[in-house]
């Protein structure tokens, strides 16, 4: 953080809201049930769409008899893929910076062929959702089931079905990396450990399903789309492109969003179809996924098999790492971010916290006839951390070095930054050593080890698992823009001072419950010098906010926050110029604090802001000639010094494993992380806690289970297990603060740290508990069955 023109950092500013756990102003209405989610909206002449979805993982669509559905009560239209293709053009999920990435054109409704069980193949629009569903049941689809490519391990076999024959094979993308002298390092190592890790396919399970309400006004030629989504400007751009509309004709509004986690940042065929239907029918059309549709058509995540090796010197020094990652992404690379990013991140992130210089990686991304896979909270991180930390623990065990000690010996030292990891990722400033020290102190590690030993003697099997990690936040254009994706990495904030001293802040980052609007209000109130209650924040509306990327990849606070800070400083300066003219004082001798113009040196009030507003807006005739108050300012920010602002942290889990049942009881969980400046400690801590529990879900419970034919077996909330309150532990969170120097506020992201590290910590803890029993688990979720199999008991 740097001092501004008044010589103060924001921490010195009187009445600073930064660093305070201010409650979220916009949470109160949610507590009263007054949120406005997309399904809460009702528009005149609004219709509802339901989709016929393929029951087969792979099927030729020979034809669909729509006559009975068209005649059903309440039905306005039945639309097939071919009919819809006349309105909406297809897309291909590739990006230029992923060399060789390939995918096939994808349509809003499948035309000739369905490629996963759950792909929409026909749409019915009716007066109510119930009537639309009734009519879907009357559609007679003539489908020929085709052989399906299901298992990712078999996707590249010569005899496997090639899903898109035009592409030649099922390999969507491959990345190879070879750094340093890997073979020599392994040859000369004192110890080499090796393991194959499996990370199951899971999904986001947002409590609010995906939802979109498209309203084409043929008179105004204006499309308004209410969308449960994270990136309104991206959606606007894509709608323009595929529906052939000028930018000025498309408005995307994203108000309350009931959870997203990366699920609601992708282009979904059924959502594009809904918008196209509104154009076709010239009336509002709403689509809200039901839970079955959510499970089978929301993007899935993970599904990786990673073979990993790590070489150690006798003193525990990591000499080299090598991985071979295989991941299945379903039949299409998802538009526009592509489905190559997760594997790419795994390659970038394995070994990230450590000093070794030798690293080789291969990642292969393959097509399969399952629900498409794409970016979900902590993209790639949980896989890379599980592999890295699992291998480190194996090495520690072989060398009889304590897990804390081996990490202490290998992390990149806090004073060695800026630095570069073996994979090439660049770190401005990390704090692994400080974080590890803080964690050991917070959990009282020696006492916990003593307790573990005492309990082991009584046949109680508890384990401690550690996971050191780095997290990608505040992405620059290096993430998507360089590859040709029209996804903004910059964000703007516009501030307007109103006559009574209220400030309206419109900003490109969006809110899905993280607290975006709260931190923007905190930053603006602090920068301008007004009470936070005087700040109204507007997000999620392409007609109303500056252009921006939205909220994803832990960018809201770091990028949106800095734009808000710069805008706030500029507005304060403009206000002080006018105040100086009115008060016949040097603007530099004045400040704005708590909604009052004060003498900067003494803090004595010179004029209320409301009086200045009155003069500027209603009596500008009394101002000196030539002085035009400019009480609307806009500032933008994009990180430029580094491609990403990496954060770091370390987590620990304390678990008990019942070797008779395979059940894992989570006793405690700790996290120390470093997201730079903490704008609102409570909001950051709750991001960490929520993320940890999401990671625990992946580690222990969550899995999209498919049978060999490609049918999704557990697509209900009763069968797909998610973390519920009774099984979750209390979670302790602490921070080390290394602000980024790339911005004045110094904030990095915190949204994904919890999910990045929790699975590895839990799996390592289970293995620590199982060690005396000679068993080890290497797959997520580590269900009771997995644990009992590891123990040889089933």
């Amino acid at each position, binding site marked *: 953080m740097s001092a501004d023109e008044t010589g103060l950092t924001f921490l010195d500013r009187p009445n600073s809201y930064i660093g305070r756990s201010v409650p979220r102003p916009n949470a109160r209405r949610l*507590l009263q049930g007054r949120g406005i989610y997309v399904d809460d909206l009702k528009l005149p002449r609004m219709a509802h769409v339901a989709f016929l979805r393929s029951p087969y993982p792979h099927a030729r669509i020979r034809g669909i008899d729509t006559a009975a559905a068209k005649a059903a009560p*309440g039905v306005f239209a039945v639309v097939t893929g071919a009919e819809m293709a006349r309105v909406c053009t297809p897309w291909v999920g590739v990006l230029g910076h992923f060399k060789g990435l390939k995918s096939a054109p994808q349509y809003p409704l499948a035309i000739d062929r369905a490629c996963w069980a759950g792909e929409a193949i026909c749409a019915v629009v009716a007066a109510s959702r119930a009537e639309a569903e009734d009519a879907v049941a009357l559609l007679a689809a003539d489908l020929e089931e085709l052989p399906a490519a299901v298992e990712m391990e078999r996707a590249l076999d010569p005899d496997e079905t090639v899903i898109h024959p035009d592409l030649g094979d099922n390999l969507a993308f491959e990345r190879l990396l070879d750094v340093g002298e890997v073979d020599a390092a392994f040859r000369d190592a004192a110890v080499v450990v090796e393991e194959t890790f499996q990370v199951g396919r899971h999904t986001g399970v947002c409590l609010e399903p995906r939802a979109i309400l498209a309203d084409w006004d043929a008179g105004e030629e204006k499309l308004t789309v209410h969308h449960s989504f994270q990136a309104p400007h991206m959606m606007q751009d894509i709608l323009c492109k595929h529906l052939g509309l000028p930018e000025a004709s498309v408005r995307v509004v994203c108000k309350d969003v009931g959870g997203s986690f990366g699920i609601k940042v992708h282009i979904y065929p059924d959502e594009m179809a809904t918008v196209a239907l509104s154009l076709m029918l010239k009336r509002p059309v709403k689509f809200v996924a039901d839970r079955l549709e959510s499970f089978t058509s929301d993007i899935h995540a993970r599904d990786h098999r990673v073979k990993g090796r790590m070489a150690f010197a006798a003193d525990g020094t990591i000499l080299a790492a090598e991985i071979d990652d295989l991941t299945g992404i379903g039949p299409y690379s998802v538009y526009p971010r592509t489905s190559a990013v997760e594997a790419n991140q795994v390659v970038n992130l394995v070994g990230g916290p450590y000093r070794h210089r030798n690293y080789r990686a291969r990642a292969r991304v393959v097509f399969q006839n399952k629900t498409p896979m794409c970016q979900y909270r902590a993209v790639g991180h949980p896989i890379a951390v599980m592999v890295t930390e699992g291998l480190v623990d194996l090495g520690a065990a072989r060398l009889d070095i304590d897990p804390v000690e081996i990490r202490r010996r290998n992390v990149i030292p806090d004073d060695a930054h800026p630095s570069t990891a073996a994979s090439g990722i660049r770190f401005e400033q990390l704090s692994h050593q400080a974080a590890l020290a803080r964690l050991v102190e917070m959990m009282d590690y020696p006492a916990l080890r003593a307790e573990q030993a005492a309990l082991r003697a009584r046949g109680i099997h508890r384990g401690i698992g550690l996971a050191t990690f780095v997290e990608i936040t505040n992405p620059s254009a290096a993430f998507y823009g360089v590859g040709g994706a029209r996804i903004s990495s910059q964000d703007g904030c516009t501030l307007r001072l109103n006559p009574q001293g209220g400030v309206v802040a419109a900003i490109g980052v969006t809110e899905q419950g993280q607290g975006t609007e709260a931190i923007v209000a905190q930053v603006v109130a602090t920068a301008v010098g007004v009470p936070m209650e005087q700040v109204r924040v507007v997000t999620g509306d392409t007609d109303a906010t500056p252009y921006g990327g939205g909220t994803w990849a832990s960018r809201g606070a770091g990028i949106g926050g800095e734009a808000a800070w710069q805008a706030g400083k500029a507005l304060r300066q403009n206000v002080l110029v006018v105040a100086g003219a009115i008060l016949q004082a040097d603007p530099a001798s004045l400040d704005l604090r708590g909604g009052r113009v004060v003498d900067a040196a003494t803090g004595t009030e010179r004029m209320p802001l409301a009086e200045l507003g009155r003069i500027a807006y209603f009596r500008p005739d009394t101002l000196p000639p030539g002085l035009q108050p400019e009480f609307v300012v806009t500032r933008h920010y994009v990180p430029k010094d580094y491609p990403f602002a990496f954060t770091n942290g370390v987590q620990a889990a304390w678990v008990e494993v019942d070797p008779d049942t395979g059940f894992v009881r989570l006793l405690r969980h700790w996290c120390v992380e470093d997201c730079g400046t903490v704008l609102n400690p409570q909001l950051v801590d709750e991001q960490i806690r929520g993320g940890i529990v999401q990671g625990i879900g992946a580690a222990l419970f969550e899995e999209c289970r498919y049978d060999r034919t490609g049918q999704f077996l557990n697509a209900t909330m009763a069968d797909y297990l998610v973390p519920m309150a009774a099984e979750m532990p209390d979670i302790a969170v602490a921070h080390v603060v290394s602000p980024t120097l790339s911005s004045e506020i110094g904030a990095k992201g915190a949204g994904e740290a919890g999910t990045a590290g929790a699975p590895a910590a839990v799996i390592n803890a289970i293995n620590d508990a199982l060690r005396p029993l000679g068993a080890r688990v290497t797959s997520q979720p580590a269900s009771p069955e997995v644990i009992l199999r590891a123990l040889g008991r089933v």
Partner: protein
Amino acid sequence: MDGASMDRVRDVTLWVNGERVSRRVAVRTHLVDFLRVELELTGSHLGCEQGVCGACTVRVDGVAVRGCLMLAVQADGARVETIEGLSDSGAIADLQAAFHARNALQCGYCTPGMLVSAAELLAANPAPTRDEIRAHISGNYCRCTGYHAIVDAIETTAAARRGEGGAA
């Protein structure tokens, strides 16, 4: 109202948030669709429509129920309270304030149902342990918070109601 079932409708009268409501409803309409679509009480949410997630939890004749597992016709003659009524009456204002102060909600979609469940617990057990709180809300899925803050907020409210201070 679902037009396809116009031939299968029934007249119902019930009291919703203290107001008498009479409507003709399709018999297949579940209570939360009725509340949301017919009465525009959109504070009760749908997450799974099979009684698992708890987002639709409302109070019927004083008992917390899954609104998606009850048909609107079954509520004929009943007294239904939703988050809107509980908010406007001030009945759970302390709980809501504690949730707000502790940031025991993020996206807010689970929150109305979570509050109804929490209020039911506090009415029955003025001094629940953290484990008892966790057990009682274990039918309310929250993807955002990880539950810790929710448990804190309920615990704080219980303590405050017992006069042990710390109320938000």
